[in-house]
């Protein structure tokens, strides 16, 4: 029996973590993640979970402790945002290099300077090369569902990698929406008991984690890590299939909206997809074949399948809520890479939008679609990358 509730994204994810009842959880505050872990802390205090919480003194220590705990042998979670994720950066690579399936919701927020506590994707995009699996979520429901699926993906015996679940700060973390909760028992059944792999606490087989590896082998270790990542997409799809059986909600590597016959399309992550879909309906009503692609799995990036889904279009705008200064937006770079090998490919442009919590409004999507129509009709592209709606 599903339970329908009206809760915030943070609350929904915290509830997923409660239902899973992990062995250890690292807790440290940062807006807009703070109240997710606060909620979890009260589950601990109220005995609703019997997780051991580590109330660390920094995110660096949080990830370090999570690594220690996961290596010890058990299910480990933490959550963060922005500066917290940035502070963890060094340890993110170690979590993945050590193949530890730590699960971490990331409530996306801008990075300093200037200081800004609102939503954009700079934090998680900055962590895209850390070897973590990244699942992105449009709304609270997806964040909840992705969190539950993340355990199955990361802990899969062929994978054993850490997973970030990205959701937009404030827009999703703090907005109340209708969410369907699964039953505790269903979630526990779905996730299953934690399976140990090379636990440090196995005294009979003493192991050493974290050796110094020289140039004669380091390259091979990284190749092995690359190969593991290559197996992730199939696992994500398998887990999604099982999840659909249980919940009735279906997930893929990405979501498309009216893309099959589209001439023009927007590629966009997370919450802004919702607004874009509404505008697509408007344009469709006017007879414009507009569509959308919203990646869900950003790492590993499903290049081939995304190229297949986009190659028939005439013009595509990739929307980035993060910038790579001196480069194109991070999502744009992936889409260009994906399409490079496609036989037919659309014209491409890149818009940077919504930084530091700037609203993404229907009129923004309208502007972009209008530009796409012109581009598709042969107008030259002035700049590949542009800031959307930035005042002069």
């Amino acid at each position: 029996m599903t339970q329908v509730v009206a809760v915030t994204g943070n609350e929904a994810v915290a509830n997923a973590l409660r239902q899973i009842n992990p062995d250890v959880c690292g807790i440290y505050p940062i807006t807009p993640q703070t109240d997710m872990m606060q909620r979890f802390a009260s589950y601990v205090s109220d005995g609703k979970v019997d997780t051991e919480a580590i109330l660390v003194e920094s995110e660096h220590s949080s990830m370090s402790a999570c690594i220690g705990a996961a290596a010890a042998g058990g299910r480990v979670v933490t959550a963060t945002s922005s500066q917290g994720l940035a502070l963890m950066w060094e340890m993110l690579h170690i979590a993945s290099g050590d193949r530890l399936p730590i699960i971490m919701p990331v409530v996306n927020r801008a990075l300093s300077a200037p200081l800004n506590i609102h939503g954009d994707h700079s934090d998680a995009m900055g962590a895209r090369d850390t070897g973590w699996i990244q699942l992105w979520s449009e709304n609270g429901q997806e964040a909840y569902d992705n969190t539950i699926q993340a355990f199955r993906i990361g802990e899969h015996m062929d994978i054993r990698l850490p997973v970030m679940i990205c959701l937009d700060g404030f827009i999703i973390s703090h907005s109340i929406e209708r969410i369907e909760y699964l039953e505790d028992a269903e979630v526990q059944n779905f996730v299953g008991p934690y399976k140990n792999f090379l636990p440090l606490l196995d005294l009979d087989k003493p192991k050493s984690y974290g050796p110094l590896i020289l140039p004669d082998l380091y390259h091979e270790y990284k190749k092995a890590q690359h190969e593991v990542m290559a197996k992730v997409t199939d696992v994500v799809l398998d887990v999604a299939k099982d999840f659909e059986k249980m919940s009735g909600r279906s997930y893929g590597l990405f979501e498309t909206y009216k893309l099959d016959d589209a001439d023009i399309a927007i590629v966009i992550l997370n919450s802004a997809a919702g607004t874009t879909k509404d505008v697509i309906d408007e344009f469709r009503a006017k007879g414009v074949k507009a569509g959308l692609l919203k990646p869900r799995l950003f790492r590993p990036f499903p290049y081939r399948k995304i190229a297949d889904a986009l190659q028939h279009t005439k013009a595509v705008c990739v929307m980035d809520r993060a910038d790579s200064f001196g480069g194109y937006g991070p999502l744009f770079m992936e889409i260009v890479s994906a399409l490079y090998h496609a036989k037919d490919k659309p014209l491409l442009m890149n818009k940077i939008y919504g930084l530091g919590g700037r609203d993404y409004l229907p009129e923004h999507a309208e502007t972009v679609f209008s530009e796409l129509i012109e581009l598709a009709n042969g107008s030259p592209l002035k700049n590949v990358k542009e800031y959307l709606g930035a005042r002069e």
Partner: protein
Amino acid sequence: MATGLKLKELSKKEDLFTHGHRMCSGCGAPIVVKMILLATDYPVVASNATGCLEVSSCIAEYTAWKIPWIHTAFENAAATISGVETMYRSLKKRGKMDKDIKFISFGGDGGTYDIGLQSLSGAMERGHDMIYVCYDNGAYMNTGIQRSSATPLGADTTTCPAGIAIPGKIRPRKNLTKIMAAHNIPYVAQASPSNWMDLMKKVRKAHEITGPKFINILSPCNRGWRSKTNDAISLSKIGVNTCYWPLYEIENGVTKITFKPKEKKPVVDFLKPQGRFKHLFAPENEWLLTKMQEEVDTEWEKLLKEEQCV
């Protein structure tokens, strides 16, 4: 069953830190580790900060550790073991672990006094059941003898080289042992491998106390100290006998000096055999020698007073 602290008995124990490690010939750190593990009669899991001990003991698919061991990074050995220890408690609570395990974290002075201080402070404050051991060789040795806040006054290092304008390190050492005592943790101690019995007793005592413990151990480094490969023990002995490195413990706030030299030697006895202090013996740097002696005296007097306070 506890092994008696007699070498004959201890020698029957298995080496949990094995030969085949790649620390320099005559390095003090492996002696320290060996003594700690010999004194430990429990199953033990260790973490290690990046540094000489770590890179030389677990390298290129060879590990000298016969106990479960984890290295993650430089500044977080305490946080890392705190995670391991927390998982252990969680599994115990959930009935998935039936063994009694002890936890030790090893860090160099750079990884402890400097970059790892926050992580250590946090772990101590949180009250994890663990011993943190700092093997203090007085500089960042692994990266080539750079100064740390544990580097003694006057020492010549590669980032505070003794030059004409500046005669080496012009700041005194940070007193980390006291900083750890200020955390009001149940046990803090200072030890030296020269006094092996004292060191092992402290480790034993620490294991029997629940909660966070800290032991600071002098760990000679002949490369960085510019001394001989055979003097790790003799130099640490002089360090103790000059009261440069007093042996004491603070148990539940009560200070006890565990070894008082019969005759307190002048600190130059400790400095003279070390090339890193060579320049101090030039006439223009004599003031540094005087200052060093004053500092050692002041600290020692303070310690004696603290002991009497009880």
